[in-house]
């Protein structure tokens, strides 16, 4: 009777679709900005080699075990004319010992290269004299500090091609996780701890990363970028970042300070004395491609949007003007009734701030 076999066909269809997808993925999936299976560094390559082995072994296990199950269902389905129960087998010790040992062996086959990868990833960086970058996760942006260059920046790092980068990952408020999927596995940023991780970028380009430990309201909007550039360009970038700002920019500093921005942001310095301010360092903000931790392109329009209403762009963003803005005579805006929303700055002030920040390069 065909209806007796219908469930078997159903299971077989599910099995085939999943198996095809499983086989398809490594060959057919497009390259995305945060794909983990198109590695670009020594660190990520090593992960990928272990992953590829485990991926195909588990696929074979899937095909064999589920295939066997399906075959069993097909072969032993009730035909409806059975007179008595089937043979009542209670077990088979040799079979039990056999498949237990087989599983142990299969596990060990995958365990040994896995241990080697642990030693590799958590060992010292493969090249001497790596470029050190201190990473600090914050709600909700990334602060970066290059100790050898004495350079503080935020949300965007520039590194030279072919030189190992050694990150010291930490956090100051809650736990975050530092991850550039194409360049290597993640490392949690835990307050009170500083943890190493390294990779050697080999390909030029701009790559994306993202916080991967839930860290509160705007966890989804805590992104970052890494630019891999030729070694010479890296030196030029450092020189540019270290250079003093355009003296003409000083004209706008007054409004930047008077609006309260100065309480959390630095525009005059980016050395180690200004580490761990409440907000990201803005001394060279105009040289960055994105603002607000990798979520908006760095254009005057977006800067204006971001400054006038940060919580609209990024829920619960901690950028609020100090209360003084809302206390004096001639209170600028109705938004002062709810100090959690908006910066309550007059439009003209915001325009001046944007103009000021545009000169930070």
């Amino acid at each position, binding site marked *: 009777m065909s209806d007796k076999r219908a469930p078997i066909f159903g299971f077989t269809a599910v099995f085939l679709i999943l198996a095809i997808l499983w086989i398809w993925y490594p060959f057919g999936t497009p390259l995305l900005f945060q794909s*983990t299976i198109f590695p670009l560094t020594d660190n990520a390559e090593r992960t990928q080699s272990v*992953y590829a082995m485990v991926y195909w072994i588990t696929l074979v296990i899937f095909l064999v075990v589920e295939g066997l199950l399906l075959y069993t269902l097909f072969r032993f389905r009730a035909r409806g004319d059975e007179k008595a129960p089937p043979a009542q087998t209670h077990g088979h010790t040799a*079979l039990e010992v056999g498949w237990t040992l087989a599983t142990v062996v299969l596990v060990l086959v995958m365990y040994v290269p896995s241990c080697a990868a642990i030693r590799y990833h958590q060992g010292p960086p493969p090249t001497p004299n790596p470029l050190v970058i201190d990473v600090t996760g914050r709600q909700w942006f990334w602060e970066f500090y290059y100790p050898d260059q004495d350079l503080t920046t935020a949300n965007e790092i520039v590194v030279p091609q072919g030189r190992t980068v050694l990150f010291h990952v930490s956090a100051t408020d809650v*736990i975050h996780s530092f991850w550039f999927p194409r360049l290597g596995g993640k490392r949690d940023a835990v307050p009170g701890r500083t943890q190493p991780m390294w990779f050697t970028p080999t390909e030029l380009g701009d790559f994306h990363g993202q916080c991967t430990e839930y860290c509160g309201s705007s966890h989804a909007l805590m992104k970052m970028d890494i630019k891999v550039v030729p070694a010479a360009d890296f030196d030029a970038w450092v020189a540019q970042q270290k250079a003093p700002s355009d003296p003409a920019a000083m004209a706008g500093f007054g409004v930047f300070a008077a609006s309260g921005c100065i309480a959390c942001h630095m525009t005059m310095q980016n050395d180690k004395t200004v580490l761990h301010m409440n907000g990201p360092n803005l001394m060279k903000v105009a040289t960055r491609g994105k603002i607000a931790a990798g979520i908006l392109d760095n254009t005057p329009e977006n800067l204006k949007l971001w400054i006038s209403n940060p919580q609209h762009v990024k829920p619960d963003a901690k950028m609020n003007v100090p209360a003084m803005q809302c206390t004096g005579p001639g209170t600028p805006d109705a938004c002062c009734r709810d100090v959690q929303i908006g910066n309550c700055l007059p439009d003209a002030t915001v325009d001046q701030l944007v103009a000021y920040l545009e000169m930070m390069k």
Partner: protein
Amino acid sequence: MATATHTLPHAHAAEPTGIWSWITTVDHKRIGILYGVSAFILFMTGGVEALIMRLQLAEPDGTVVSAQTFNALFTMHGTTMIFMAIMPLGAAFFNYMVPLMIGARDVAFPRLNALSYWVFFFGALFINSSFLFGTPPDAGWFAYAPLSNRTGSPTHSVDFWILGLQILGVASMMAGVNFIVTILNMRAPGMTLMRMPVFVWMVLVVQFLVVLAFPIITVGLVFLMFDRLFGTNFYIPEAGADPLLYQHLFWLFGHPEVYILILPAMGIVSEVLPTFSRKPLFGAEFVIFSGIAIGFLGFGVWSHHMFTTGLGPVADISFSFTTMMIAVPTAVKIFNWIATVWGGQLRFDTPMLFALGFVFMFTIGGLSGFMHAVPAIDLQQQDTYFIVAHFHYVLFGGSILGLFGGIYYWYPKFTGRLMDERLGMYHFWGTMIGFNMTFFPMHFLGADGMPRRIYTYHAWEGWSTWNMVATVGAFIIASSQLIFLYNYVTSRVRGKVAGNDPWDAATLEWATSSPPPEWDFDRIPQVTSSRPVFDMKYHGAPKPPPGRDEGIHIPPPSYWPIIVGLGIAMIFGGAMLVPTKGPWVSITGFVIFVGGTFGWVFQPGYGYTPSEHH
């Protein structure tokens, strides 16, 4: 149809009905139903939370809910499904089935059993009431410190979560002790431990896990509560604490918890597969010892949740080894299930479909789990949708499918009627298709670098297609559950009358009537093998003589459990008001608790003899 109005055997005219009879019941079967109904309501609540999340993520830049709401939704979805849906659905089966399967008249402590239900009830009510106050928990279902500290979560949101879990923990601990004592002491004559049904074995293992694991999370949560309410510094990094302590305590509980969720389903599958193959479970003792091994190993693998936190190579190598070793007893179980089906006469009734679905889907969850047992791979997969895919394959494809199998399998025992096969089939295939559509693409999303717990993403990230597929799948799952609900309700009236043993099964619960009388068995059966009912049918084992045992005692109904339960919930729930409003709610709760306990102690508990009425 004549059968529709057929009087069920053992329709006990004397058995009380009405709401009061349910509030005061100490009958393990009724408590089982209370657990099951509550858990299913909460399962649907968690499901709705999931659907809203899937709507938000269906397309890039979704605007269905705000970031804050989304964060509360995934926190409460996880908390609800784990602590208030899957655990109590398991408890429904422990309560209803264990005494029947071991040939007992009730659990060892019937009133304590009622108390654990009511404590669970108030705990679930308490934690979900946070929605009404506008401060639902939003720190994730594992609420890592320091995000869950007072500075990270200043409102009462996390207080609801901590105290709610403490209340639910009290319920689980009491049930754990109760079932360990019941299983060890109340088996029918002749039922040695190795003749015990595998489901009961898995329940026993689960209860030991509960009793050993819940104190750990209790300590972890008490520390967190003290940090939040009374200014201690257990997890405050500024004061020199290491917030990883919280993670260790949480996962030292959290991983055994995973087995608390999956072992009952494994037990159900170990009952269903033999019945519908008409064979005994292949290598039953290996399946049992594998379950025990999983229980033991479960306490030694917690740090695999923490490979990215930087524990160092020695810890990673050790925990990766113990984690991979769990694959061995798990694989042994799967092989034994296949060997059980091998050589049988397979009938594909709904319970069997769900049991096979369990084996099928759980295997996938096991294999993806093996991938991130390798720390190098885990560093890429941790906290991405790959992990979300993995644990839904074990908790939905595993636990939930197994538990549904159990509902279809034992429904005739609960109600005396069978559920509709055709609707059951629709439910199964709808769930199976929807489930794979929702969760298989999440493997790809994770490998494409989509982190979990993000409330939005952008089109340029390239995650849109699979997210849309997943959302469509989620709605297919949800509609299939409505078919189940309809089937469950209507079959109580319209279902085919089942008789005592509709599936031609082997274990003791099928020896009594459907539904069983209040005292479970007219005569406590003598057990001579692991398949007493099969032996009576096919091997000429003696059947119990007609009539009823003399001197059956049934514990009387009691309203003290609900009062004591309310007191316990108020003691805990009131704690969050202590720093601001004073300890008055807790003190009131304590007075109710003490008063209720006095009333309880002085209420005669030795029981009454049911009247002869048939």
